[in-house]
């Protein structure tokens, strides 16, 4: 499969967004998958997932100490360097401590554009949290309306929910195809696609996905069986360096991932009956939590164990960004729980972009050898 157009987009996200802007589209940057794209789309704007510049950090170091993840640093660099000037506004949700502070530092140093904090609840398992979440989303929508000078109708919201659901459905389908026949879609392409989903025009995404599904979907029976070297990638990072390829090169077969810009994107479609805002809220409440959120004590472990079993993964490779506290806290427990079900795991602590050198590869190879 060739995603040439998407490749261009991913390689030059700011150029892409600039073009959209020239065509009169408002562009709203956001960090983290707890920002509801639906609301931004319904307000007539283009949601652009911020994943941070990957090289040439010069300015962000003047605002952030060394012990801050590369994602936060990269996003700030985009803002400070002026690349982010193309954004009409930014949205930071309440997730980890580092993103909280990133929001403040951005607000104080990056001028132009509106700035919204989406202070979501951290608990996602109580009635009061649900009510608060709905309140916050409603306020967010009215803030967006004011900032963008538009009025959003219920029909707008329904249309955007349909669009994002369609993306979810197609992505899920593509993941299923790849799961059955991994050779049909290279890991690098999947990674590219996952990145593009947050940047490109969402209609182009739908089109591309439809083509890909039609092309590749010649289906056939399920071929993937549980295999020792079937790998589930986990860690659900806010942005993912291309680890898919590395695993393949080391002799493993990535059958699924639980990344925030990957397999977690299409978890839980939106309910389309009833109030769209409530549907968005309920999706956040029912989707398996990010470690920055709380929904019981075993939610993530149960999810991961079930996912590994369902996808026939023989092992899990956790990928964390260095200095990412929430994911690091969950790791020992998740590892232990997986071990209980006989699934070994490996933790790779990385920066985005991946550091040069063979260290990660060597560790992966050693791990995969052990799985024989």
């Amino acid at each position, binding site marked *: 499969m060739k995603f040439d157009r998407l490749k261009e987009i991913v390689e030059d996200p700011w150029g892409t967004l600039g073009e959209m802007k020239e065509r009169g589209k408002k562009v709203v940057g956001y960090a983290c998958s707890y920002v509801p794209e639906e609301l931004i789309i319904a307000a007539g704007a283009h949601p652009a997932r911020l994943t941070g510049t990957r090289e040439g950090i010069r300015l962000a170091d*003047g*605002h*952030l*100490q060394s*012990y*801050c993840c590369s994602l936060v640093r990269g996003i700030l660099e985009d803002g400070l360097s002026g690349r982010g000037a193309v954004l009409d506004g930014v949205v930071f949700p*309440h*997730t*980890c*401590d*580092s993103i*909280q*502070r*990133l*929001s*403040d*530092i951005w*607000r*104080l*140093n990056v001028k132009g554009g509106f700035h919204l*904090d989406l*202070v979501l*609840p*951290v*608990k996602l398992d*109580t009635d*009061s*949290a649900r*009510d*608060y979440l709905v*309140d*916050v989303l409603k*306020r967010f929508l009215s803030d967006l309306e004011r900032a963008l000078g538009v009025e959003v109708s219920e029909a707008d919201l329904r249309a955007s929910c349909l669009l994002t659901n369609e993306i979810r459905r197609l992505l899920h389908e593509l993941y299923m195809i790849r799961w059955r026949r991994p050779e049909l879609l290279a890991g690098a392409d999947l990674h590219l696609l996952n990145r593009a989903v947050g940047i490109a025009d969402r209609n182009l995404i739908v089109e591309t996905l439809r083509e890909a599904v039609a092309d590749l979907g010649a289906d056939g029976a399920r071929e993937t069986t549980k295999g020792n070297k079937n790998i589930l990638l986990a860690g659900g990072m806010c942005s993912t360096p291309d680890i898919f390829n590395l695993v393949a090169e080391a002799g493993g077969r990535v059958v699924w991932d639980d990344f925030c810009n990957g397999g977690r994107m299409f978890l839980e479609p939106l309910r389309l009956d009833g109030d769209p805002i409530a549907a968005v809220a309920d999706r956040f409440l029912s989707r398996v939590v990010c*470690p*920055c959120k*709380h929904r019981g*004590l*075993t939610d993530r472990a149960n999810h991961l164990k079930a996912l590994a079993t369902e996808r026939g993964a023989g092992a899990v490779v956790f990928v*964390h960004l*260095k*200095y990412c*506290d*929430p994911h*690091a*806290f*969950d*790791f*020992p*427990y998740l*590892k232990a729980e997986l071990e209980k079900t006989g699934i070994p795991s490996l*933790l790779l*602590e990385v920066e985005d972009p991946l550091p040069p050198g063979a260290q990660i590869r060597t560790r992966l190879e050693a791990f995969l050898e052990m799985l024989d």
Partner: protein
Amino acid sequence: MNARTDEKERKKIKAVKKMKEIMTFYYIDAKTASETGKKVAWITSGGPVEPLIAMDVIPVYPENHGAMIGAAKMGVELCEKAEAMGYSGDLCSYARSDIACATVNGGPIGGLPRPDMLVCCNNICGTVLKWYEIQARYFNCPLFILDTPFCHTSFSAEAKRYVRRQIDEYITFLEDVCKKPFDRDRMAEVGRLSIEGQRLWQAVLDTTINRPAPMTAFDAFFHLALIVTLRGTQQAVDYYRLLLDEMNERVREGVGAVDEEKYRLLWDNLPIWYRTKWLSDKFAAHGACLVADTYTSAWCSSLKYMNEDDFLESMAEGYTRIYLNIGVDEMARTVIAMIDKYGADGLVMHSNRSCKPYSLGQYDIRSIVERERGVPTLIIEADMCDERNFAEAQIEGRIDAFMEMMAAKGSA
């Protein structure tokens, strides 16, 4: 006795003895709770302790325990143990120490008493959420989370409603775990004592407005323990009254904490527990007194939102709008107000690897403070408990250079 030891005696804060006594009894009480039939709750340092006191539950503070571990220089050993358990060495060293300590009952007091419940308020960080989840699994005990939405620029009406509702949920939780009804009259009394304690603590801290300052931030780090652990009790009120009297007397007699106080500095972030004495001596040798800090004052920073006649009602706002749960610009304004109030000539920031919510943003606070008040800043890179992150020679060099710069500035 020669004059020197005489002077040293005079500078010793007498209340220290009382404080040690109270803390010893407090920990004995907590550690024998299972024999006396009392319940024990582990609670975060910024957590709502008053309802626990009202329910006769003994509150225990893993963070205070973390500070003790740090001061006893046992942090490295426990942190390494946590790392062997799979926890990243970049995580908060309080959390690492405590998680490791729970499994071995180690540390200076042989571990904390087993909790009957956990109470976690995320007004200080997201770390505590993860940490308490881990302990709730480990001890298999109920966990209550008070979720206090971050106030980047404001405290919204919906956030207020949400937190207020959770206070009721908290009370129901306590009634369930303690199997007895919540006594609102007792609560009102505890609330009044809490506010009185906080006011007294603020008054103690404010005695350093005087020149020379009768105490330093290093003293405050020590005397803080009660406003954290026994807030809402008569004992805390009595103790701070005693301490305040002593400080006022020192002011009257002109007893300064530092010989020939020349410079007045403001400390930001948590103490470096395993080096408080070293740092205190180091600064004192330059005639520098750390007159105030953003850390110990956080336990009375919400007074402006509290209503002693309706504690439960005002709690929602008081617990949400604390120092760490606000935007960097509001933190900078607080720092500036403290610089003005205490007449500080410089700012010392502990850039604390353990604590991202406290540390990320410090560079911006430094710029704002320098711009608004022309006050210079020294940044010390370290960690509050994990001594492996303390480069002594380098830090010593930076302190010396900073103090020389202050001296040059003063004589210029």
